Every structure is written in structure tokens, then in C-alpha cells.
């Protein structure tokens, strides 16, 4: 009996050993960092939740299908504390120790640029849903693919919408001194000049700024009637509140990132009429070639997390959806084959269009996706984020009037 048990144990162990590699092959490991702590926490966590939703939906549907095989998706993630130095260590760890086959970008241009150095070094594909700065794509990267509109085009819609309302405007550009905001404003200044608008002032501020009174007095002194700028969440919201408290007479206030968060309406009347360039809004009417419709995605997200959905969450989901599509089209998880698909793909999803540049100068830079312009408006006494530009996507008229 004892001998039988030993033999049975040996056979079972052998079976497990043989079965293990097959099981490992049936899992795709995707690595990423998110900012659970630090200043980027709000937007980063929303983006991660979007990715999580995609993973859970894919696994619930039986995994990513390649031929007769189904690959379940596994995430390995760490808290980067919103710090570049952590990103460098953790992306190395994700690749070397955790054997991540594919990677999603961290949130923000600065962190994505740092992560890309590592992923390129190891020849790993990274889908970028959090880094908008175009410069990252001028470094000869081969495996980095941008899913969102590049920073150069962030304020294009705001300037076009302004142009539809007036031929003469005086714009104050005030922005956070970080790579993303600098890139956005640098491009917007050129676009505004080309549109014939006057630049009333240009000023940057440290990302840690908590009191904008001195800058706001400068805006008043400059005689600007349009404000464009901001940076990320805390500074953008503070700017909005202080512009309101100090009763700055602006006809258009366009602030980056912060007003897109559902939490922005906690500013009350200070959020009224503030516009935000947005990568995506739940009300868009894009017709997807595959994956959920915008409404289906928004509902699934709200059901899963019991919180409002914003474009950061959508950009997290789209990273996964595009990777899944590329793998399924390539019928392989080989990095070169999947990269070739990501280069070739020209598709429309709930998030909008996807097509990246494939030239050596700007490989991976998003070329097809378009921003929308959203504005906080009061409807039946309640603050609501409405889409006001472009015409094809708008849910409400753009309010262009002195507050």
C-alpha cells in the first residue's frame, strides 16, 4: 500500500510538472505601475480601474482567443508613488522578475517617458494611455504605442471653438511647469497665433503651487478675456476656484485635466462654464469596429465601481482593448508580430479612432484619435459636463459669455 502511495504521488507530481508549462502559456501577464499614492493618484487610479474592467470582462468571456487557445489575462502592478525613480525600478522588475509579456504605461507624460526607456531596452510592447507628450515618440522607440491624442492637439478644439465665437480674443496661457502641460501650451500658442488671437500673457507655475492669487492678479492686469492652461488635478481645481473667487472677467476658461473629473463639480459655481479638453466623454457617439459602445463601457464601469466614469478610465480600458485586438489579429503573443499589428491597425473603438505614426521620426505617436471639448453647465439646477465641440459630438451649445 505504501509503495502504491509513493508511485501515485510520483505520477501526480509528474502530471503537475508536465501541466504547469501549459498553464503558464495560457496566461498573458501584463505589467504596469499606478500612482496609488502621490499627486497623480486620482487620474492614475481611474485609468487603472479602466484596465481592470477590461481584464475582468476578457477573463469572464474566456480570455483572449488565439486559434483554439484561450489566454487568461493576469495583471502585475505596483504603486509608483507618482515618482519617476520608482517607475524606473518597477518597470525593470515587472519585466525581469515578474516576466510581464506586455506593459501598460503609468499615468502622466513624465512617468511614461521614464517607463519607455526600460520597456524599449527589453524590447517589450507598452500601450500608452497616460502619457500625452509627443516628445516621448521622437526618441526612436519601436514598441511604444500611444492610444490617446498627443499633447500638441489638446487645446486645438478649445481654440477652434473660440474661433467660432469670436475673431478677437486675448488669451492668458498659465500652465504647470511639467512636461505635459508645457507641450500642450507650446502647441496651443502657435495655434492661437495662427487663428489671429492675441496672447495677453504666458506664465508657468511650479506643480506644487497652492495659492494662485499673484498669478490671477497678473491675469487681471493683462486684460485677458480667455484663460487656457492648468496642469493636473489639484492645481487645475484650485485655479478654477480662485478665478471664480477673485471674479476674473473671462469669457472662456479652459483648464486641462481637472475639470474632467466628476469630483470637479464639488467646486460648485466655481466650476460653471469651465471647459476641458477631453480624450473621451460617455456621451460620444463613436461606432466601434469591435468592443463595447461608449454607452456600454460607461454603464459597465459605473456598475463595477459605483463611481462616475471619465476619460482616464476610458484610456485605461482602451489600452487593453487595443492590445487584445492586436494579439487576436496577429494570432500570436510574439512581441514582433503584435507590434506589427499595432503599427498596421486603423480602427475605430468606443474611445474613438486609433492609428499611429510608423515613421522613424515619430513612431508610435497617435495620429487619428480626436479630443472633444466639454463644459460644465447648469441643467435644471444641477451641474453637468456637456460636450460642446465638435458639432458632430456636441450635446449642448458652447456657453461663451463673461461670468
Amino acid at each position, binding site marked *: 500500500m505504501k509503495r502504491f502511495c509513493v508511485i501515485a504521488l510520483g505520477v501526480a507530481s509528474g502530471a503537475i510538472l508536465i501541466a504547469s508549462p501549459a498553464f503558464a502559456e495560457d496566461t498573458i501577464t501584463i505589467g504596469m505601475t499606478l500612482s496609488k499614492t502621490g499627486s497623480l493618484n486620482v487620474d492614475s487610479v481611474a485609468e487603472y480601474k479602466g484596465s481592470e474592467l477590461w481584464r475582468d470582462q476578457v477573463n469572464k468571456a474566456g480570455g483572449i482567443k488565439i486559434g483554439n487557445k484561450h489566454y487568461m489575462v493576469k495583471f502585475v502592478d505596483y504603486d509608483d508613488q507618482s515618482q519617476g525613480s520608482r517607475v524606473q525600478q518597477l518597470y525593470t522588475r515587472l519585466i525581469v522578475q515578474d516576466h510581464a509579456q506586455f506593459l501598460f504605461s503609468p499615468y502622466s507624460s513624465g512617468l511614461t517617458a521614464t517607463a519607455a526607456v526600460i520597456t524599449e531596452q527589453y524590447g517589450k510592447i507598452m500601450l500608452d494611455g497616460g502619457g500625452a507628450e509627443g516628445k516621448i515618440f521622437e526618441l526612436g522607440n519601436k514598441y511604444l504605442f500611444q492610444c490617446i491624442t498627443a499633447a500638441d492637439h489638446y487645446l486645438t478644439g478649445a481654440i477652434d471653438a473660440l474661433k467660432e465665437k469670436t475673431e478677437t480674443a486675448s488669451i492668458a496661457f498659465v500652465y504647470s511647469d511639467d512636461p505635459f502641460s508645457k507641450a500642450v501650451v507650446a502647441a496651443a500658442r502657435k495655434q492661437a497665433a495662427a487663428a489671429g488671437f492675441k496672447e495677453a500673457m504666458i506664465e*508657468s507655475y511650479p506643480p506644487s503651487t*497652492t495659492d494662485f*492669487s499673484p498669478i490671477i492678479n*497678473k491675469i487681471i492686469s493683462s486684460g485677458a478675456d480667455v484663460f487656457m492652461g492648468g496642469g493636473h488635478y489639484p492645481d487645475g481645481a484650485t485655479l478654477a476656484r480662485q478665478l471664480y473667487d477673485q471674479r476674473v472677467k473671462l469669457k472662456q476658461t479652459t483648464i486641462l485635466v481637472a475639470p474632467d473629473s466628476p469630483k470637479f463639480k464639488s467646486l460648485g459655481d466655481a466650476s460653471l462654464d469651465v471647459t476641458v479638453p477631453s480624450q473621451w466623454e460617455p456621451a460620444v457617439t463613436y461606432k466601434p469596429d469591435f468592443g463595447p459602445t461608449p454607452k456600454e463601457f460607461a454603464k459597465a464601469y459605473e456598475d463595477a465601481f459605483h463611481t462616475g466614469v471619465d476619460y482616464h478610465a476610458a484610456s485605461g480600458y482602451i489600452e487593453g482593448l487595443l492590445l487584445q485586438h492586436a494579439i487576436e489579429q496577429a494570432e500570436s503573443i510574439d512581441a514582433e508580430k503584435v507590434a506589427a499589428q499595432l503599427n498596421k491597425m486603423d480602427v475605430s473603438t468606443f474611445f474613438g479612432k486609433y492609428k499611429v505614426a510608423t515613421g522613424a521620426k515619430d513612431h508610435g505617436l497617435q495620429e487619428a484619435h480626436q479630443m472633444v471639448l466639454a463644459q460644465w453647465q447648469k441643467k435644471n439646477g444641477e451641474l453637468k459636463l456637456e460636450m460642446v465641440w465638435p458639432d458632430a459630438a456636441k450635446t449642448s451649445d458652447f456657453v461663451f459669455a463673461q461670468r
Partner: protein
Amino acid sequence: MTTMIGLFASLVDGLLVGSVYGLAAMGISLIWGVMDVINLTHGAMIVAGMFSLYLLVDTLGVPVYLTLPPIFIGGLIVGIALYWIAVHHMIGQPPLMSLLSTFAVNLVLIGLGTAKWGTVLFNVPVSLPGASIGRYTFPGTHIAAALLTAAIAFLLYLFLFHTRPGKAVRAVSGNREAAELVGIPTTRMLAFAFGLGVALACVSGMLIGTLFPFTVLSGDAYQLKSFVVTVLGGLGNPAGALIGGIAIGLFEGLTAPFIPVNWTLVFEFVLFVVVLIAFPGGLLSLRLPRRAG
């Protein structure tokens, strides 16, 4: 003309916000003056004041400015508890020990706060009529914060110079051994002084919370500013801290129209270093008597 009004508006804004910086720095200055401890939980306590304001207003519906007394009392109690947890055993040790101890507590508190609230922005909308000069508006909240700061500073002065416990705190600050010899319970006074410093930090956080939206991480910027203000006003001198705060506010207001605001922080720290070298006792060199040895 517009430029002159703009400069005047900037100076008034600087004065208003600077007074709140001063109040924030008074707490750190008082603690340093009494027990030679650099309290690195200061930023976390400012944030505690902000969140207490939010919770009292949003959850319990307490009117904004009526939250000041409970936040002060709560800060005092928390401060005394913190003294026993993180500071008491470090009294008499090299300053680095208390620095590390309070820094560790700060990390724990910020970590707990981040776990609970993330870095989501909180806002307490306050509607108070302001004052205007031309196109420039001074929000009512800024004026109210400056007036309350002045009132708190005056009450602190009355407490320290005209009450027995206040005099006892100053006696412990001046010479702990001598204070013990005349029957002052010095350990209790140290705990009380630490609590008072923390209460001032909490109240300044509450007032800042009426001016700007805030996150769990907002305290760092004010803690850093408090150090600059404290050095300007003289380490250990709460009155100097208030004047230092106003000086920093005015400096920011005066320079803002002429230089990019990006440079303001650089100039502030240049000023910080210059004052440390040239006037180690602070610009006013008005210091509370420090204990011997």
C-alpha cells in the same frame, strides 16, 4: 495706473495670505521655542485641520467659522497625545532624534490619510462678500482668515504673557530646571505646549481650507513655507512667526508683478539662506528667552 492698482492688489493679497502662513508657522515656532523639537508632523496637522473642517461642515452641517473652536480643542488633545507618543522620550536627546520621530509619525498619518481618501481634492465652498478695487477682488474668505489670524495671535499673546499657564510655558522655555525648582510641572507644560502648537497648525489648516481646495498631500507645501517663515521671524518666537508670514506674503505680492512666479520660491529660499547666515535670530531678532544649556 492699472499696474499700480495691480501692484497694490498683489500686496494686499500677500498681506492676507501671508498672515495665514504666519499662523501656520506660529505652531512650529512655539514648539521649537519651548522644547527644541522640530515638529515634522506639522504638515499632517495642517491637513488634519483641513479635513476636520470638511467633515464638520459636510457631514454635521456646522457653519464654517464655528468649526474653529472644536478644531482648536481637537488639535490640542491630539497634540498632547502626539507628545506622549512621539516626542516625550526624545526630549533632551539630539534634535535629530525628535526630527526622525515626528517625521515617522508624519509618514504614518499621511499614509493613513491617503489610504482613506486618496489624493482626491476636497473643497469647502464658502460664500462671503469680498472687497473690490477696480477689477481686482479680495475674496471675503481671505479677509476673514486674516482677521481671525490676528485675533488668534492676540489671544495667544494674552495667554502667554498674562495667564499663569502661559507664564509657566514661557518659564519652561526659558529654563526648564529652574521652572521645576519653583514647582512648575514641566513635563505637563511641555505636553501642553506641544498640544498648543499642534492646535495652531490645525486651526491654520482649517482657515486655509476656507481659501483653497485641498488634498491629503497639501500640508507639505505649508510645512515648507512654515520653515522659511519661522527662520525669518526667529526660531522659537511665535510673534516673529506671524510677522515673518506677513513678510513672506508681502514679498510674494511685491515680486509677483515683476518676475515669473516660478522664481518666487527660488528667491524665498535665497532669502532663507541669507537670513540664516546674517540674522540667525530672525529678522527681528526678538526671541523668547531660551533655556540655558
